[in-house]
């Protein structure tokens, strides 16, 4: 029963556990269930990845309806590779969540929060696994709606406005996506992705299809927070509960990047046909401007969460620059960076969650003296920060290496140079935090004992260290990530019809 239904289990497990969490309601009952289910989902996703790597693409027909009519779940190396990431980060953050939430959200709402969190995970996994264009929209909305609720549960009233802004932008993005899918359906008469890929080349130049792709691109740009459509992101990440931020920063935009790759490479094959087109250059330009502007803005933030949020906008820029190079190395870099950035940013936000749980805030002034008070937490931040800069032996280096390699291969010397220069900006915004943590004394707390440490609870610290440890592990052992990414990149660029 489990083996043949593997592709559908990552959806079924969390979506059935979510209502159970709502029924149980008490955090003490709901949390163990949610965590167990999240880890089980992670296990299933890993099994799925192993199966895809061994046997190739898996197709699963929901309700046993044949593909063009029924909904098909289709797992190839591109999405099989993303699913363990989403479910793994989801499970790890959920393990970390209760202690972190205790400081930020009223306890009576924890049970519901776990339910909504699982729904959000369901939506993200569903977007990844499905092979039906409209089904993507449904799962997109499941994940978005639950995300709006999660963001607005933040500790501060400003989280409400952040959630509302996110909702308006997200709903517009989702609706643009829906219009795009509608226009493609109008011309091809099918919603199945494999079918679409077959029928689109014949009508590629029709105005309907071009308009449809334009709507898709705009809607998805909103969802991935491509500069200048990123305005919802910094506030949402800053004011959401820390655990929620860690989960969102690691997964939400990454899954949207996957949808972009799916639609524009495997379905439309635009990556190929726009080889030297203006659209490609425009997106690359926006991505590069985004890297610089967002990194620069990050350097001037007093709130560290917000600085990291702007850095996320910049990282999306790196990923898109890699995608638009249209070389195997560039695409490999982009794919690896999706994975690596999820680990780094998830880890960094988890570190900040630890600080918030102990100190009560994550402004620069709150971080004074953390290096002595919470040594392990501070070291975790330093390692994560080194990754953001791209220092060798961290994951950040691996992705930047392939991105620069890809740029050189494509003959884009100036792009390679710009990526290296922009890393210096990362040095600035990471160093500001590190300096405050290690070299500034807290003003108002002179009575703190020099030798005494005051780390976050073990239940928070351990997942944080695991996540940060993973950034070193995958920085040293690149076999898994780079190999799969390279295979996938070759598939995207070669098989893009």
């Amino acid at each position: 029963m489990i083996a043949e239904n593997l592709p559908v289990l990552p959806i079924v497990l969390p979506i059935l556990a979510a209502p159970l969490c709502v029924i149980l309601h008490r955090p003490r009952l709901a949390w163990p269930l949610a965590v167990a289910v999240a880890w089980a989902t992670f296990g299933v996703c890993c099994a799925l990845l192993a199966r895809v790597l061994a046997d190739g693409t898996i197709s699963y027909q929901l309700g046993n309806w044949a593909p063009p009519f029924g909904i098909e779940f289709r797992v190839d190396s591109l999405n099989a590779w993303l699913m363990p990431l989403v479910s793994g980060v989801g499970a790890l953050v959920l393990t970390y969540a209760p202690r972190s939430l205790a400081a930020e959200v009223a306890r009576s709402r924890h049970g519901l929060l776990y339910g909504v969190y699982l729904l959000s995970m369901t939506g993200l996994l569903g977007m990844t696994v499905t092979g039906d264009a409209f089904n993507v929209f449904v799962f997109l909305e499941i994940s978005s709606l639950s995300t709006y609720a999660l963001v607005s549960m933040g500790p501060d009233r400003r989280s409400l406005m952040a959630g509302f802004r996110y909702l308006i932008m997200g709903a517009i993005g989702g609706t643009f996506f829906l219009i795009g899918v509608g226009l493609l359906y109008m011309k091809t008469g099918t919603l199945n992705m494999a079918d679409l890929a077959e029928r689109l080349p014949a009508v590629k130049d029709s105005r309907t299809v071009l308009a449809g792709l334009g709507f898709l691109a705009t809607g998805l740009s909103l969802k991935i927070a491509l500069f200048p459509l990123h305005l919802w992101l910094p506030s949402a990440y800053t004011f959401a509960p820390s655990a929620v931020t860690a989960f969102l920063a690691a997964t939400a935009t990454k899954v949207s990047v996957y949808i972009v790759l799916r639609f524009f490479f495997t379905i439309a094959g635009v990556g190929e046909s726009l080889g030297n087109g203006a659209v490609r250059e425009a997106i690359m330009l926006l991505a590069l401007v985004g890297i610089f502007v967002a990194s620069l803005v990050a350097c001037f933030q007093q709130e560290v969460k917000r600085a990291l949020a702007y850095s996320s906008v910049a990282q999306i820029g790196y990923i898109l620059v890699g995608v638009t190079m249209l070389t195997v190395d560039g695409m490999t870099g982009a794919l690896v960076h999706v994975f690596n950035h999820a680990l780094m940013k998830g880890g960094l936000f988890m570190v900040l969650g630890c600080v918030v749980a102990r100190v009560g805030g994550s402004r620069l002034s709150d971080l004074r003296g953390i290096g002595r008070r919470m040594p392990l937490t501070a070291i975790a931040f330093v390692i994560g920060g080194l990754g953001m800069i791209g220092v060798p032996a961290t994951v950040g280096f691996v992705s930047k290496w392939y991105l620069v390699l890809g740029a050189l291969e494509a003959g884009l010397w100036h792009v390679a140079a710009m990526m290296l220069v922009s890393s210096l900006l990362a040095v600035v915004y990471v160093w500001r935090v590190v300096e405050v943590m290690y070299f500034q004394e807290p003003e108002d707390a002179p009575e703190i004992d020099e030798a005494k440490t005051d780390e976050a609870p073990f239940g928070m610290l351990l997942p944080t260290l695991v996540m940060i440890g993973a950034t070193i592990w995958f920085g040293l052992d690149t076999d898994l990530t780079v190999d799969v990414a390279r295979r996938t990149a070759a598939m995207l660029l070669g098989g893009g019809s």
Partner: protein
Amino acid sequence: MSTFVGLYNYWIVIVLMMAGLYTVIAKGNLVKKVIGLNLFQTSVILFYVGMGKVEGGTAPILVHGDGAEEVVYSNPLPHVLMLTAIVVGIATTAVALALVVRLNEAYDSIEEDEILEQDPTT
């Protein structure tokens, strides 16, 4: 001329869509924003339903008896898809209005500029 008259349903969709999008962008009142968003989403429903119409087609319910083979049905798939989109729209509206209620309790206002005055960093 035929672009204007022959495709009138799409013109209606576009006018509604842009009216909705304009309301979302231009209005400072949060409830008006939600209404604009609703209008925007509803125009897409109209777009899909219009797309599924087959000339001379009837409701897609199986007809038995004489002449059953000659009956032309409208394409039911876009309608089914829009059933889902309606539900999504309701859910979005409900979450949005819930947030507006909470914002009103927290700031005593549903005007965006007044809220920003109280909390400039959002």
